[in-house]
């Protein structure tokens, strides 16, 4: 095949895929950009060019920054804890001979629909019907029945929900990596008298570092978009909007206020931030051939 074949007639085979990409990704993105620079509210019949007004309004919007703050806090905590829990789970399972039988149990929470999982947790922490307040009373927490009515506790419940759903599947990925660690290397450590700690430090940690970093980055980006289960868990961002993460905030801008221009400006800004984040991950992990 000539070296520049990709620019020849063969490139026509790419046209169907290119058409799909253009209609499914580029066109909506172009629409998003157009809306971001317009004062566009179809429900109120407004549509005028706004320049950077929507972006400037965002800078002065306290609700946006509150929402951004809680989103980042949630994504960081949920991402980090679910990965740490997953790694601990995987390392523990790797020591057990019947680990394969545990796999369905690891995956069950993940395959529970997010909204259903949220409702299960909502009932668990309910002031009257739930059981969590019994533990809270035992721990002598103040106001033990108020699990979702304090911002910090509501955040903790949301994080616990995400960790419950995701740590198993993260553990499975990590376990798969552990299983592929070179047997001779492991045996070398064992025969040279290295115990569990030596295996962790000399074999597993170096092998797991890069994939775990990748999973962590993926989990963080995933959690940024978690809206439906937090919406179901906190009835739209309770207490008093403190758990109104960005997807909920955006859905209010679009569907409740009809502020498509304003919502699109925020979406575009967040898209650019996510793009930079993703580029950093790719640059750090993939381009350096570390992500294997």
């Amino acid at each position, binding site marked *: 095949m000539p070296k520049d074949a990709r620019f020849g007639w063969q490139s026509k085979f790419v046209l169907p895929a290119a058409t799909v990409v253009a209609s499914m990704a580029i066109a909506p993105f172009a629409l998003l950009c157009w809306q971001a620079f317009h004062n566009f509210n*179809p*429900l*109120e*019949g407004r549509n005028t060019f706004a320049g950077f007004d929507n972006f400037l309004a965002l800078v002065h919007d306290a*609700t946006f920054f509150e929402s951004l703050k809680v989103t980042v806090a949630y994504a960081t905590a949920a991402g980090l804890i679910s990965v740490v829990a997953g790694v601990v789970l995987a390392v523990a399972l790797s020591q057990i001979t019947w680990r394969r039988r545990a796999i369905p149990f690891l995956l069950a929470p993940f395959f529970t629909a997010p909204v259903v999982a949220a409702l299960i947790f*909502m009932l668990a*922490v*309910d*002031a*009257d019907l739930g059981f969590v307040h019994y533990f809270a009373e035992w721990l002598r927490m103040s*106001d033990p*029945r*108020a*699990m*979702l*009515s304090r911002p910090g506790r509501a955040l903790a419940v949301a994080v616990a929900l995400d960790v419950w759903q995701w740590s198993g599947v993260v553990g499975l990925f990590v376990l798969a990596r552990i299983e592929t660690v070179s047997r001779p290397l492991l045996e070398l450590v064992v025969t040279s008298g290295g115990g569990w700690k030596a295996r962790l430090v000399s074999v597993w940690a170096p092998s797991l570092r890069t994939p775990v970093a990748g999973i962590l980055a993926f989990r963080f980006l995933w959690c940024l978009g978690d809206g439906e289960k937090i919406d179901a868990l*906190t*009835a*739209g*961002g*309770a*207490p*008093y*909007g*403190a758990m*109104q993460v960005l997807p909920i905030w955006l859905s*209010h801008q679009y*569907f*409740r*206020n*009809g*502020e498509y221009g304003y919502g699109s400006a925020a979406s575009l800004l967040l898209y650019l931030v996510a793009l930079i984040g993703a580029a950093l991950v790719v640059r750090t992990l993939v381009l350096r051939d570390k992500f294997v």
Partner: protein
Amino acid sequence: MKFTSIRFVAVIGVALGIATACHREAPAPPPSEWKGLSEAARPYSGRTIKILGENLPPLQSLERLRGDFERSTGIKLDINLKDHSTAIRSILAGSLSHEYDYDLVFIPHKEMGRLVATDSVLPLDQFFRQRGLRDPTFDPKKQLVQPFFDEVGTYQGRWYGLPLYLGGSIVVYRRDLAESEQERAAYRARFGEEMVVPPKTHEQWLHLAQHFYRPDAQPPLYGIALLLSDEALWYEWQSALFSFNGNVLDAKHGWEYGDVVVNSPEAIKATDFYRDLSHYAPPDAVKYSWPLGIAKMQAGVNFMTLLQYDVVNEFENPERTKLAGKFGYFLPPDVNGGCASQLESWVGFIPKSARSPEASWLLLQWMMRPDIQIQLHLEGNVSPRLSTYDDPRIRSQRPTAVILESLHCMTPKPTIPEADGIQQILTEELQTALSGKASSKAALDNAAKRIADRLGNKTKLRYPVQ
């Protein structure tokens, strides 16, 4: 040649098949004169009316009576019941695309301005004028509660919808506890006065919440279940707002723009009062919306709750609660010793893209018939038709007297296209006031400024903001 002919015939065949499949047979015109529902519906027999609305007693009662309509007309009903927010989102999304998948939608009347502004619903007077489709005994302006009907069914003088139910503020309370001699004595000892139920003043109302607030009891009892979740807060707070003679816009009708008065001294007092009440609410009231608030009240967790009376049947039906028969009802007191109530309804609108708008109209008109209204009311709805309350079975129901009492103290809410935006602004600002991040005055000043900015030159601030 032969192959080409076969291919040609195949292409024509496929095209004809697709055309036949897509073709919707135009119904025969309705009769020129009203000859009864069955005759009027004959051209639409065999069709299905797809309906969307909220999963609460009013539409559930229609679900139970659907058989009567289907037998009379041959028209099938496909009733889709969704939760509050999902129903509204689906309907508003349809108003953008003008492609509803529904032939009849029930949505809060405050959304009417949006639906009209986006030209997505049909005015109903066009059906009312057709003699073959109009039951001559039906006259909504005279038969439905007024000015309720004008506010929820018409917009700037044009008729767009028919109310599913009559809605207004109501307080549901545990009558058995309020009538207990032991409780009355304890109340007297604590406040130095007799327990007054229904309360005549805000102070008496607050005392009731305070008296029955027992978070450490086993099981706990809470003074008042306020629905403090994001979707319900604005509705609930308005009951307090109107009871202090406050308002959001100073406008006579929902479709009018008036001065922004949401930061008036009355509104600030109302918000302070609402915040005081919230101190006696259950610890997880911040996630209470209607279904949860009703369920907790049915379970006896709270002494009272502030609701709207489309759900009163939930407390009278022994199949729904073991406490049926032990509840009582009162209207929020107003500052002048009278009553206060907000005017509210989910209203049936016919989308422009409805497949059989005439059939949808016939259903709406059938629902308004006096006999059907009585049946719907007995099934759990709250009838918007005045004659319904003459029925002795309905007159003897416990909530009826309170509902009728409220008719003269209902305050309309904005139905302008920006109504949802106003709701969102107020929800956000009220959340800052209730969470203690801002004083009531600061929160309402901020709300007033944001609402004025939102409405632009259509309005102005009446009270200065700090």
